């Protein structure tokens, strides 16, 4: 576990609402609250994971940090500097230090460009090296991620999914960024390839002193890689703590049910699978109070009327749930 260092990335109360337009004059009828007030810090050289089911806003969070979609509200600090206030053009100078690896290796590389030109592009865009130095750098980084010299002159469609993801990694890495956001970076790959790519990512993190924000729905992958984990539900952070304490001591009922859904190979380990009732509510019409209350096995009256405060209930363990509020009788926690 990393000691507390200075945060590379701070996200404060970030919101992203997508307008729903309707009617003849296309007026805004409502908003989809994809991300609804999220805050977290990411320390230097740590891996911070965001987990949650589809549609909970974890990808939108990642894209909003890099301003691929403009967040509706909130603040993002990168190395202590506020980066949401500036224009897109001014923001470009930060992009060199904050990179992203996308989910689908089949659509994240321009099919008309060779690997060489794909890797050269970031260097040429930021004018980091002369043409000759840049070429050397391309071969160096390609080799580091496991691509041979001949492969560099090929087109993306000649590669498998795993190899393409290596190209994406090389492309993000070539500028020596500080922070890489991995948006479901291994979800589209086979399990065996996943392991290879994850190990590569772990090695590269040590070698290049990288900070990762890892977005995933796969708790096994997340457990393997993360220092700290944030659990999202319906655009809000439910629980955030270290990997160890999340898996051993989950506090939020949603986290507990998520963990109970992890498939296990161990037949002796008896598990009580907590099956949630109902579906994820519509993010355009979120329930009053706690967003999870409609499906929560431990919901009570207060959950309906008051939104739970997101607070640090144990050391380095944040949770948004009324069960951990003072003044409410301690309830039995669900244990695995």
């Amino acid at each position, binding site marked *: 576990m990393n000691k507390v260092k200075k945060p590379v990335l701070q996200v404060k109360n970030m919101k992203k609402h997508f307008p729903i337009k309707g009617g003849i004059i296309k007026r805004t009828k409502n908003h989809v609250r994809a991300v609804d007030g999220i805050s977290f810090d990411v320390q230097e050289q740590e891996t911070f994971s965001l987990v949650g089911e589809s549609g909970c806003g974890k990808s939108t969070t990642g*894209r909003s940090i*890099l301003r*691929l979609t403009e967040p509706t509200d909130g603040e993002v600090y990168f190395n202590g500097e506020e980066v949401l206030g500036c224009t897109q053009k001014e923001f*470009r*100078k930060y*992009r*060199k230090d904050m*990179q*992203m690896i*996308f*989910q*689908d290796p089949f*659509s*994240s*590389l*321009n*099919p*008309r*460009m060779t690997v060489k030109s794909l890797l050269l*592009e*970031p260097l040429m*865009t*930021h004018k980091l090296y002369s043409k000759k130095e840049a070429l050397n750098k391309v071969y160096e980084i390609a080799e580091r991620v496991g691509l041979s010299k001949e492969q560099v002159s090929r087109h993306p469609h000649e590669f498998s999914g795993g190899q393409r993801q290596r190209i*994406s990694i090389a*492309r993000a890495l070539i*500028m020596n960024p500080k922070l890489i956001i991995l948006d479901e970076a291994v979800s589209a790959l086979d399990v065996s390839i996943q392991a290879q790519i994850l190990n590569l990512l772990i090695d590269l993190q040590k070698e290049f002193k990288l900070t990762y924000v890892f977005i995933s729905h796969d708790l096994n992958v997340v457990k393997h890689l993360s220092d700290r984990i944030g659990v999202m539900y319906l655009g809000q952070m439910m629980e955030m703590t270290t990997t160890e304490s999340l898996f051993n001591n989950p506090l939020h009922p949603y986290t507990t049910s998520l963990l109970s859904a992890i498939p296990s190979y161990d037949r002796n380990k008896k598990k009580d699978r907590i099956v949630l009732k109902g579906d994820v509510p519509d993010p355009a019409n979120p329930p009053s109070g706690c967003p999870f209350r409609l499906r929560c096995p431990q919901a009570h009256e207060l959950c309906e009327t008051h939104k739970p405060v997101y607070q640090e209930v144990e050391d380095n363990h944040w949770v948004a749930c009324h069960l951990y509020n003072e003044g409410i009788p301690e309830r039995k926690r669900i244990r695995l």
Partner: protein
Amino acid sequence: MKQFLKRLRKDKVGIVGFVGIAMVIIIGLLAPLIAPYGPEEMSQTHVMEGPSKEFIFGTDEFGRDIFSRIVYGAQVSLQVGLIAVGIGAGFGLLFGLISGFFQGKIDQIIMRIMDVFFAFPDILLALTIVAVLGPSLTNTMIAIGIVFTPVFTRVVRGTVISVKENEYISNAVAIGVSPVNIIIKHVTPNIMAPFIVQVTLGLSGAILTEAALSFLGLGVQPPNPSWGVMLNDGRALMEFAPWTILFPAGAIIFTIFCFNLFGDSLRDILDPKLK
């Protein structure tokens, strides 16, 4: 390119179109060698003669050899087709890229102007423009170019919007590539397939429009040999000398047919989903 020819070879219909177009181009380029007479060379002894060994497509009211005029007319038709489509495709590409990539207000402005052009029938719009500019070959090409701009703009805009959804565009933004470079390097190469197809279809449309304008007397001016002009000349003689109108019409039909065949097979060849 190699792959392209390989796939073209498999498509028999495409080859017919391709060969036909190549033939028209060669005939146009080598017109002085192929044509037995000059395009404006008259003969008082051979007026309105039917097809014979000497004049294989017959002669018109001034004793001009129709075959020679068709051969020279190919030059005019191709010139009009290429330049008019060049103008239309160039502006269409520019407007379509801007409109589709940036969207928002600029898109609204461009597309509403294009809608106004769309509202007029092609010929009527071309006629109006030529009437304002004055009838000549150059103005015909400009007019057809303007008429074709909205079609290209729409095709390009639609494709840009779908290409923009790909993650490699987000990826380029994340890397910090400027919008202009994203358009040039990432968007444009990926919209080329439908664009090229539209160009071949536009070529046949342009040739047809030129013929129509010339037929109405507002395109290429006589005695210049254009297929449309020849149709117009032969119109009055249709009953006595049908060959004066049959052969130029046949040339137009043949050329457009070939362009359409080729355009159709290009669409199949360039569609990456059919790979």
